[in-house]
Every structure is written in structure tokens, then in C-alpha cells.
């Protein structure tokens, strides 16, 4: 079972992101479950959504307390919510920001994790460019496909296509693709730096 927890704020499409991720996994023939943290969501309030996928039917209904991956849609949450709570040692972290981990002040904290499992991506910028609105969720899923390798980018794009009306889907697909390429580039750069 692979478990992803998505943190963001009300209005950023956190729940939709988890749902799309589950659709992407379903399209790969896997069993998937997505659900929100069921708060009285208000715009701007911290929101959590969860997505599990597995090769067998998922019966578990508890929230994801030991995620294999974290997608953080809003870096201002880092100091407000225990977003890293329970993350497994070889877990993945993807944060929506144009800054680096050390610029966010968590460089030291993430040293205990696998460097190649960590990435930041300016998803909101990609969304503004391709969708015209600051909704980073689809772009982040594109970046997530790149950093985690646990879901194919084509499955993510198909899930976005399924979720939105055509025009909105087009923009989000472009944003997801751009974020995917960006993260791949970052990872290659990091790999080269390590090799040097």
C-alpha cells in the first residue's frame, strides 16, 4: 500500500487533488481510496486529504498517519500544522514553492530523508501561467509523478481530463506537464551535482 497525504488550504483544491490521484491509480488497474479530513472547510483554513493505493481492495478507513508521501500545497502551513507528522524515513516530500528546502528553513530537518525523494516546485506559478488561477493542485500531481515514480504522468493527465470540463482540463494538463518536466529537471540536476 502506498499512502499519500496532501496538505493545503481551503480553496486550493486539496480534496480534488486526492480524488484525482485516486483516479490516476484506478486507471492503472490499482485499488485506490481518496477522502478528505472532513473539517468544516473554509477558504484559507488548513485542509488535509488522503489517498491510498494498493494492489488489493482497501478496507482501512483511518486517516493516513504514516504517509509514504506528502504533498504540501501551501508552504505557510509548515509552521502551523504538523505536516511532516509520521512521514516514513524513505518518504517523499513535494512542496509548492519557488524556494528551496533550506530557504524555507527546513533544510536541516529534511536531512534525515532521502535527498532524491524531496523536491520543491513552483506549482502556483505554473497554474497562473496555464490555468490563469492560483490553483496548484493539478500541477503538483504532475510534479508528484516525477518525484515519486509511483504514478505515471499519463495516468495523472487522464485523471485531470476526467475531472474537469475540457477547457479547464487543458490548462491544468499543461500546468501538470510543466511541473512534471520541471521536477524531472531538478532531479537530474541534483543527480549530476551528487555525481560531481
Amino acid at each position, binding site marked *: 500500500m502506498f499512502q499519500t497525504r496532501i496538505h493545503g488550504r481551503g480553496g486550493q483544491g486539496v480534496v480534488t487533488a486526492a480524488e484525482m490521484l485516486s483516479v490516476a*491509480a484506478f486507471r492503472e488497474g490499482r485499488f485506490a481510496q*481518496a*477522502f478528505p479530513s472532513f473539517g468544516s472547510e473554509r477558504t484559507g483554513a488548513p485542509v488535509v486529504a488522503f489517498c491510498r493505493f494498493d494492489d488489493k481492495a482497501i*478496507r*482501512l*478507513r*483511518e486517516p493516513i*498517519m504514516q504517509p509514504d508521501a506528502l504533498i504540501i500545497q501551501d508552504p505557510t502551513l509548515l509552521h502551523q500544522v504538523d505536516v511532516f507528522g509520521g512521514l516514513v524515513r524513505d518518504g517523499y516530500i513535494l512542496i509548492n514553492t519557488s524556494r528551496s528546502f533550506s530557504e524555507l528553513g527546513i533544510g536541516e530537518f529534511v536531512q534525515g530523508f532521502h535527498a532524491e525523494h524531496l523536491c520543491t516546485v513552483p506549482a502556483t506559478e505554473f497554474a497562473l501561467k496555464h490555468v490563469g488561477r492560483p490553483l496548484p493542485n493539478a500541477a503538483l500531481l504532475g510534479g508528484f509523478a516525477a518525484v515519486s515514480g509511483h504514478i505515471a504522468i499519463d495516468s495523472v493527465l487522464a485523471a485531470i481530463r476526467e475531472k474537469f470540463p475540457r477547457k479547464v482540463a487543458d490548462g491544468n494538463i499543461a500546468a501538470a506537464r510543466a511541473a512534471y518536466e520541471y521536477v524531472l529537471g531538478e532531479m537530474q540536476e541534483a543527480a549530476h551535482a551528487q555525481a560531481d
Partner: protein
Amino acid sequence: MLKQTEGSHAVAEAVALCRPEVICAYPISPQTHIVEGLGEMVKSGALANCEFINVESEFAAMSVAIGASAAGARAYTATASQGLLFMAEAVFNASGLGLPIVMTVANRAIGAPINIWNDHTDAMSQRDCGWIQLFAEDNQEALDLHIQAFRLGEELSLPVMVCMDGFILTHAYERVDIPAQPQVDAYLPRYEPRQILDPAEPVSIGAMVGPEAFMEVRYLAHIKQMQALELIPGYAEEFRSVFGRGSGGLLHSYRTEDADTIVVALGSVLGTIKDTVDEMRADGTRIGVLGITCFRPWPHAAMRTALEGAKRVVVLEKSLAVGLGGIVSSNVHNSLAAPSTPVYTVIAGLGGRTITRASLHGVFADAIAGQLESVSFLDLDGTAVDRVLAREREVRRSGPIAEAVLRGMGAPGARIG
């Protein structure tokens, strides 16, 4: 067709496949997405020959369903929580009149304090209202139970409540197999009402009945529910032959064959319990689960048989009979062949409190060790309770209780689990 979709959407599709003729609804979380979905299908024409009636309250929703059903239409509505309470008088009327309305209850807590999250207090508050009550374990079963509900309700001329956990199921995306229209048509015959308000053949429905006949009418309602116990297993079998999967029935046993400890529960928590049981089985603990699909009528004989070999029974329920303890556990206790078998009542998940495997491991182990109170509350914050009780002892005007509990806890909104 296999689909990855929201539970509410899956139920809306299932209801549409049952060809309802009147749908009336008043929005309340977490039920809203179901009737929104149906409303869209009626508007787009995808659901033909169906009138969608927006009403001004839940009381009106059930009243319209009663009128529509009495006029011979296949009628459906959905509600939750305070909405179910607000329609309670009409809920009793629907069953008293013998009208086979199907209603989804997206289970949610009852205030005060106001709480939108899941537990079973709403459905349990109506357990003696004369409706059949079915509980879904997952979204596939929620979908399937609606198709069976129309079949069962219309055969017996009794209303059926399909209960599914609010948010946990209604808002969860998971894989469901949505049947094809010909399959549903093959399983669910056209509605042939036993009674109908027809100007060509006038009758009155709902006459006043005095002491000379009221008992007989109520007794007949009881007999009909007993008939449901006979019909439900057969309908589940037939469902399997048409749709190729098991859904419905009275009870479901899981790894109970040689179990010393049997956990009884209903609804979506069964999944988490089964995972916990698998882990405990791997450690050599003889434990199993009994899931209740049909809560009303109460499957007394099937329950007695299913629990026969158990040395102890743990009933985990998402409702509280204040001043008593467990509702489900009281029912279970009545069905035990050996009344001396210990029955532990575990009240869990009230108002959406997370039920984790870790907590279940602890409470099941305590039960096995004989260290569990007969009525216990899973993950109760004893410190928070003691703080309020201490303050009440010290100060006469101790203030509102819910606010006092919250104040002592800081900001629980920042917690993940």
C-alpha cells in the same frame, strides 16, 4: 462498469438505475451530493420519467415522499442527522401506512453540540420507527443495498432506510462496479403498489384507528418486518446471481469459525476492524468479526447462531444510549444463546472521532484479558472530562460544557488524526 468515483455519486447512479418516479429532498451535509447528483440527472434528462421536487424542509421531503408513494410512484429521498429528526413524525407515518419509500441516511451525529461528522446516532434514534434499516460497509455495498432496498420494500410494502457513513463513505472516492440498466431491470420488477390513491377507484389511506384495531395494525407491521428476515437472504442470493457479487444479507461473518472473541459492528468501521483482526490473527489470536447489514428487523436467530462459539463478544458501536450504554450491544445480548457470555460495549467514533487500528488493538486485547469495563469509550480523553467535572464541583456557574471541554484542549483543529 468499474468506476473510481465518490460514494454519493455512486449511490445517485444506483438510485437512478432503479427508475424512481419522484425524488424530493432538502439539502443537509453529508447527504447533499447524492440528491444534487440525482437533480442533475433529472434536469439533463438522463433520468427520465422522474419528478425532482425541491421542498422547504425535511418534514416536507418525507411528506412529499408519502404523497408520491401513496399515489403509486416509486419515491426516494435522502437525509442525515437533524434532518432525520425533523422529519421523524412523517418517518413513522410512512412505515405506519406501509409505503415503500427508500431513503438514504448519510449517518451523522446529532446535536447539541452541533457536529457535522459521522456517527450512527441519527439512524439509531429511529430504530423502532418501523422502517427496515440496512447498513453499508463500503461504497459498493451502499450502491447495491439501494437496489435491494427498492425490491424488498416494494415486495413487503414497507419503507427502507439505507444507512451509509457520512463523509467516510459519502465523500470517499473508491472503486465501484456500477451495474448496467438491463441488470437492474432484471432484478427489480416494476412497482406494483398494494394500495394506491386512484380517483377511478377511491380509497382512503391513513384512517383513524381506535383501540379495537390499533394493536392489530401494529402487530401486522411487526409480522412484515419478520417476513423481511425471510426474504433478505434470498434477495441477496438473487442479487449475486444477477450482478455477480455478494452484497446485502442479514449478517456477514469474517474469520469467526474458531474465534474465541467476536467483534460485532456495523458500517464502514468493519473495514478497519477486519484489518486489525488480520493482524491479530497473524499473532495467533483467535478473533473474528460479525458485521450487521440488517439492523431492523433484528436478525435474532442468525445472530444467535453466528455468536454461538464465542467466549466473549465485543460490540463496537458509533452511538450511545445515554444513561444505558450500547444500543446494538443490548440487542446482541438478547440474542446470545448463553446469556453468561461476556458482552463488552465499546462506544467509538462519536461525532467523527477517528477509529484507528492502534486503538482497536488495545481495546480488543483488553477484552481478551478480561480488563475491559462492560461499557467503555474508545480513546476518551479522561483528563478533559476530569477537568470539567472538577470545575463543576468547585464553581456553581461552571458555564457551558462543550465550550469548557474545548477550552481545555487548545486547538484540536490542528490535529491530523
